[in-house]
């Protein structure tokens, strides 16, 4: 037989004994720490994914601009559209923009019209969004022109057939996608004057409103699209209020004005990024509270499991406790021995939870393209919480072991 090193000379004796004892009952130890494993796991996954989604959501709302009010044409079914027309509404039209411009506090209004027309020379799966926009639209949406020039007011007034391309679309088009290149839209030839910087928004199921993907868009000057678009209705107006604090007061005004102009037809939608931001942070508070609840609950459940198994262990080892007392162990020595075991158990559970949780979060981030957040500041509290659970729920069994009468303990069983 090989000699094992005596574990008696160092401060590690408690740890060594705890490890030995847990290893001896590894099935039981493993099962009893499952609660902690799942507790830490769920906290990590909830934080990791929730935080990622939250950041993305806030970033998107931010991109819409908190000082803006968006008016979008409602996506109506044919019969709804007919009902609106019967009421005398002509939909979202340039006249609305003219009226809204009269409102106090409106700095500028950008307009966008979605166009359906074929673009030649592109593979079938690529269907870029064709948008006619007012000259200041790109600026209001903080779209950067990477190469060439932006759309100018004169493009709009002179109805020039020029366009800006989204970064991804430009890259796909190759030589034709650069400034100076040309694009066939319907029966017309459109000259590319500029390319937008890529935004790479990624997918986000949690987006509070539909986001336009400008990476795949073609932007034409409003008015130049008359050749292939037909119709006067707009898809989106963006009101720049100059200051986000002026937004709340103006929202009701905008709504009243549009209701009058549209004869009460509900054929438009107001999107107020500032309001969305407020809602998002409120949702987040609720989420945080829920998260804390889940964490607490699962750790309590896990802790009760630990306490249970420790009580069993104390009962099983009553004679051992008596013997150790006879050999000179103080009550605190006995308490420490069992507490070490409980903490070791929860620490192992916590560690396992962190490992699995990290794998799950990374897996989701990779598989679903969902942004995931893993940081020391989520892992460290999760781990310390599991240690704390061990201390809290190991305390009672440890105390019970320490308080045993040595004589009765020796005679036990």
């Amino acid at each position, binding site marked *: *037989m*090989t*000699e*094992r090193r*005596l*574990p*008696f*000379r160092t401060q590690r*004796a408690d740890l060594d004994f705890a490890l*030995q*004892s847990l290893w*001896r009952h590894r099935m039981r130890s493993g099962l009893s720490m499952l609660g902690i494993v799942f507790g830490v796991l769920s906290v990590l996954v909830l934080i990791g994914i929730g935080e990622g989604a939250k950041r993305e959501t806030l970033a998107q709302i931010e991109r819409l601009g908190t000082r803006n009010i968006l008016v979008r044409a409602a996506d109506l079914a044919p019969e709804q559209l007919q009902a609106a027309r019967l009421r005398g509404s002509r939909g979202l039209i340039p006249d609305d923009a003219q009226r809204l411009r009269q409102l106090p506090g409106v700095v500028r209004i950008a307009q966008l019209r979605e166009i359906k027309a074929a673009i030649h020379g592109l593979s079938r799966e690529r269907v870029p969004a064709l948008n006619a926009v007012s000259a200041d639209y790109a600026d209001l949406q903080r779209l950067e022109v990477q190469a060439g020039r932006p759309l100018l007011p004169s493009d709009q007034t002179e109805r020039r057939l020029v366009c800006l391309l989204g970064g991804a679309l430009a890259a796909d088009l190759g030589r034709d996608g650069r400034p100076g290149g040309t694009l066939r839209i319907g029966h017309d030839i459109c000259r590319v004057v500029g390319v937008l910087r890529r935004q790479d928004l990624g997918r986000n199921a949690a987006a509070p409103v539909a986001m336009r993907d400008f990476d795949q868009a073609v932007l034409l000057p409003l008015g130049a699209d008359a050749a292939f678009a037909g119709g006067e209705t707009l898809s989106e107006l963006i009101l720049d209020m100059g200051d986000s604090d002026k937004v709340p007061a103006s929202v009701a005004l905008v709504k009243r004005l549009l209701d009058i102009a549209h004869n009460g037809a509900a054929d438009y939608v107001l999107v107020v990024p500032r309001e969305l931001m407020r809602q998002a942070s409120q949702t987040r508070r609720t989420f945080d509270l829920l998260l804390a609840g889940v964490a607490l609950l699962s750790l309590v459940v896990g802790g009760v499991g630990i306490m249970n198994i420790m009580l069993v262990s104390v009962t099983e080892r009553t*004679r*051992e406790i*008596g*013997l*150790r*007392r*006879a*050999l*000179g*162990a*103080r*009550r*605190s*020595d006995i308490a420490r021995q069992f507490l070490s075991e409980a903490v070791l158990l929860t620490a192992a559970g916590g560690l396992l939870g962190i490992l699995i949780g990290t794998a799950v979060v990374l897996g989701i981030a990779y598989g679903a393209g969902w942004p995931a957040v893993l940081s020391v500041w989520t892992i460290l509290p999760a781990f310390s919480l599991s240690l704390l659970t061990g201390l809290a729920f190991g305390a009672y069994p440890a105390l019970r072991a320490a308080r045993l009468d*040595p*004589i009765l303990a*020796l005679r036990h069983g």
Partner: protein
Amino acid sequence: MLEVIGLCKHYVLAGREVSVLESLDLRVEAGEFVAIRGASGSGKSTLLHVLGCLDRPSAGEYRFAGRPMQMLDDDALSAFRANDVGFVFQNFHLLPELTARENVALPFLYQGGVVKAGSDVDRVVGEALAQVGLAERAEHLPAQLSGGEMQRVALARAVVKRPRLLLADEPTGNLDSATGGEILDLLESLNRGGMTLIMVTHDESVARRAGRQLQLRDGRFDD
């Protein structure tokens, strides 16, 4: 070395007070080998527990080397058990998952400050095992040892810290007479080495090995 004056021990059992030891007086000098005889229920184990400070007397005085033991708190009594007393039990009380060597080393876990300077636990443990003739069985688990061997391991554990007092509670009770005799030989040789030895037994032939015999009956010594 130790002196007991008017020692009483009562228990409350099912609402009734049961007296186990009644006003005992006892004086044991350093280096003595005392056997305490008595039938089961005579209170001899309880007396041993009180002498080893595993139990507290209900009344009376217990002085060990002049110290009034009934005044000490639990931690101080633990320190006393750790350093000044060794216990040998009838049913060995070895930890089944530890090897013989680890069992013998166990007392060093507690208040280990007594390990003499320059001495090393591994060596001291080895010497204790050699002293009881089990140097070769050091890495065996209790389940792999015979009853006599187990009691020898327990004996080595009791004396590994060189306590001044060795308390043995029916040390041969679970052994056949030949093996029991070997254990008694070991106890005797330890006593000859200067260790004070108090042994509790119901067996007259075992008690005869002691230098002094006391008979305990219903909580009192026979005169």
